[in-house]
């Protein structure tokens, strides 16, 4: 949500400074460097350095000889790892899986959080604070914990939900893809919906009230106002959330990793690109492959961000 308020603040900032001459500006610069320094230091250590290391790792392969009970040698392999990873159908399948996941998840997530945000913003809503907080609560739960909690709720014999379903004559078999994948979508929505609602709600609150009043005076219904005024006004946040959601899907990891323990027939060990990278690094000790797979994934995420930004830009101008 902070992301929404920030652009406005930075846009306003330049208007305050210009009156001053050269000296104050250099002082500002010094201050900026001082204030931004810690960020760039951490950014370099926690983001740039690992990316650099991954790039480096991705160019090498470990080679053993004979039976392998002697020391390994590290060989430069250029783009060999990248080609091998791309050739591996398990890696490519991972993208197909997350794409299928996205087809179910993204519309549900965007539609659901928009609907809830619009309800909260509507004049009819009661107990807004309470619902905001309740909806946001799951986001505070770490993803891994959420996955564990849901895992219990999905386990026959333990879960009250499953026993209710079963007593109602419905079968609940995580071994079926038609159950396992929606179950995974459900965990992801539960975790992130509240967060997106807050983003949308904040954007909705920023719509000038006089516009909404004008609509009201013109006789527009709540529904009509939502559709023709509120939604167009928050397009840029919808684009932003869409971007984050898409990237989040590509990076799916902990939920399927845990889910794999109960539904291994569907959620395989290389079900998403990140699971593939994890298996390469920590089961196959193939760090070069894993690094190459990760870099490729990052490139795809980058391209996707670029694409989504381009798509949502015209909206922003509107």
């Amino acid at each position, binding site marked *: 949500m902070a992301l929404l308020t920030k652009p406005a603040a930075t846009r306003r900032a330049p208007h305050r400074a210009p009156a001053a001459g050269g000296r104050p500006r250099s002082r500002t610069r010094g201050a900026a460097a001082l204030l931004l320094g810690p960020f760039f230091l951490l950014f370099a250590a926690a983001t740039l350095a690992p990316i650099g290391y991954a790039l480096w790792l991705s160019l090498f392969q470990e080679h*053993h000889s004979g*039976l392998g009970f002697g020391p390994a040698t590290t060989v430069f392999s250029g783009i060999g790892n990248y080609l091998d990873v791309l050739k591996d159908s398990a890696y490519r399948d991972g993208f197909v899986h997350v794409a299928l996941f996205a087809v179910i998840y993204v519309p549900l997530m965007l539609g659901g959080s928009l609907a809830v945000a619009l309800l909260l913003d509507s004049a009819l809503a009661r107990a807004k604070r309470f619902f905001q907080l309740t909806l946001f609560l799951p986001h505070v739960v770490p993803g891994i914990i959420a996955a564990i909690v849901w895992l219990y709720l999905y386990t026959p014999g333990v879960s009250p939900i499953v026993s209710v379903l079963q007593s109602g004559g419905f079968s609940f078999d995580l071994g079926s893809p038609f159950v396992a994948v929606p179950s995974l979508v459900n965990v992801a929505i539960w975790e992130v919906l509240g967060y997106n609602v807050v983003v949308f709600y904040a954007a909705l609150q920023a719509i000038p009230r006089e516009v909404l009043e004008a609509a009201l005076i013109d006789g527009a219904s709540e529904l009509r106002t939502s559709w023709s005024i509120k939604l167009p006004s928050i397009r840029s946040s919808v684009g932003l959330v869409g971007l984050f959601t898409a990237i989040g899907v590509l990076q799916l990891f902990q939920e399927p990793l845990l889910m794999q323990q109960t539904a291994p027939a569907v959620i395989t060990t290389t079900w998403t690109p990140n699971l593939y990278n994890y298996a390469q690094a*920590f089961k196959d*000790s*193939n760090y070069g492959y894993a690094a190459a797979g990760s870099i490729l994934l990052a490139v795809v995420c980058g391209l996707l961000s670029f694409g989504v930004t381009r798509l949502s830009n015209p909206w922003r101008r509107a």
Partner: protein
Amino acid sequence: MTHRSAFPLPAGRTSHRLLAIGACAALSLVSLTACGSSAATTSGGSAQNSGKPVEITFWTWTKNADKVVAEFNKTHKDVHVTLSQTVGGPTGYAKDFAAIKAGNGPDLFNVEYSELPNFVAQGDVQDITSAVGSSATSALGNSMQLTTLGGKTWAVPFDIEPTVFYYRKDLFQKYNLTVPTTWDQFKTDATALQKAAPGAHLINFPTDDASVFASMAWQAGAQWFGTSGNAWKVNFQDAATLKAAAYWQGLIDGGQVSTYLSSSPALTADLNNSKVIGMISGPFEGAYLKTMATSSAGKWAVAPLPTFDGTPATGAVGGSSYAVSKNSTHTAAAVEFATWMSTNADAVATRVAGGASSALPADPAMDTVAQKAFDASFYGGQDIYTLNQQAAATIKTGWTWGPLMVSTWSDFADPWAKLGKGGTITGALQSAQAQTVSQIKAAGLNVQG
């Protein structure tokens, strides 16, 4: 795999003798390991001079490890162990690999026999041939072969896990089943049970763990891995394996065995509801079964694994050892602790106390210690240690684990999960073999197959 397995014990026959061995080992390391860092060589010696204990770290997934470590620290002034409880199975190994790669590995950690070659091939563990004292070597006897690869010792063995058959004695009587000595009889029992108690299964065929099936292929005479000169031979589809595969596929297709995941709560429920009345696993399972099938305490018994021809034979499922990571600069101290856990009566008794472990110690002298400490009332007081010992003597020789078993088990995971849901054992064997061969090739090792 068998991540449920966990088996460390401690021992302490004569701690001062071990101490002396440790010191000798440390000395020989000084002279032998030119490659070891200077820290490695000084730590052992100087610590003993200054009277300050050598600090080592130990990672294990085994139960009662905290008590074992406390017992060691209480009785040893030269070495102090800090325990880190980890999880077993692929997740635990992932952590070991990553930590050692990053230089943060423990001094000593648990590895199963099947995965040990993977750590050796990865260069992640130290050659401890010269660090293991002769008394430990002779106490552990033939078991030392389990941790010897390429003529070098890479770990201290802890237990031997011959595959055996657990069954509900009372229900076998109730349904008039014969305790099987052949697989034919086993199938007859399974079919009879299916008729007598619809919905009940003789055993569960775990679909998240191929190691139980591997042990049965092993029993039938399979050899998945072998070496020929300087090259690996890989064959998951030899005649013996295919025979076992056809047999088990028949039972799965006929619905005579269930196909739960071994960690499934539904399996636990079925064990308690008399819906699954047997289990095939190693001696370590004795302690786990006890905690799973609580409602049927006293009604279980253990028998040797049936065979195709009636001649006693078995494979092994799991079994673990203690390896020194390449990050360790305290090899001698780590080996001292490891041999203590495997060959000292105190250590073994502490490990087994409360029934936390039913593993069969690799050191035969420790079997009676473990037996005394293990409460066998769950098995109606049956002498399971003698039975397990006898089973251990029938483990078929000639079985070798491959160089990348952590990967290989993971190659099995996906197709294995589909058993009972349309997948087949032969299909799984085929794909796992293909993947294993390509992984071995990718690692630059020689391989035929």
